[in-house]
């Protein structure tokens, strides 16, 4: 376990990893987002009462739904790319192309989802 890091946060933020780095960061943020908020959601549903209902009403707010749906959708689509590439390692050669395909799939799907969420919030 001789792991040592001498990279400051400022250096890390200036790292020009381009597409793959961006998906890595977003995958991590969206995964963390889901882990944190779904944990709170389960605990709130378990607790019930006034507090639980209040927390779950936040989850039903359309602004929160836009955020959590980004997490779910990006994590799912990026995760599918990672799964395909890791189970068929020959595909890793085309990682950058795969990331472009991923955005082409993700952006319209997410746009439609946001449209549905906003329309439902406005009374469908």
């Amino acid at each position, binding site marked *: 376990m001789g792991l040592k890091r001498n990279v400051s946060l400022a250096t890390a933020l200036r790292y020009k990893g381009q597409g793959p780095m961006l998906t890595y960061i977003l995958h991590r943020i969206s995964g963390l987002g889901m882990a944190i908020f779904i944990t709170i959601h389960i605990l709130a549903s378990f607790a019930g009462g006034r507090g639980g209902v209040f927390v779950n009403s936040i989850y039903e707010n359309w602004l929160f739904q836009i955020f959590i749906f980004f997490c779910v959708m990006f994590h*799912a689509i990026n995760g599918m790319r990672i799964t395909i590439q*890791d189970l068929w390692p020959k595909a890793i050669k085309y990682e950058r192309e795969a990331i472009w395909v991923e955005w082409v799939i993700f952006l319209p799907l997410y746009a439609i989802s946001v449209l549905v969420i906003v329309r439902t919030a406005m009374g469908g």
Partner: protein
Amino acid sequence: MAAKPRNLSLSQRGLNFEMLMWLFTRLSALAMYAFILFGMIGALYMGARTQMNFADIMRWAFMPNVVHVQDTKVINFDLWATPFWKVISSGLLLIAVAHGVHGLVVIADDYLAGPRARQIVRIISILFMLAMILIGGYVLWSS
């Protein structure tokens, strides 16, 4: 990555718990796709009569349990509250919790490199996983 010769033992070829969890993360991702697609099909089938909207279908798909669609326009919950769907939603809960907790361990490992810290992270993660499965399972089955 060069393949190791086959006369080595499995552990010498890299088969260990971390590798199995790496594989589990990929396979559970595929399993969750299957679960969510199955939930969507179920919601389309059961919600057709009440003209369920797309948002509510997705709501059901992400957790096919009756508590998750309580606030929707569904009138008759007979089809939705069956033991079959409780088993399906429990399966999704188990896989999602295992996948998520392992993800948290992977993230923690990026910041905690010492063997002692990593061991503590693993103990906490196992306790957290058991707690979430018990609490989530209670929510699903008590509805």
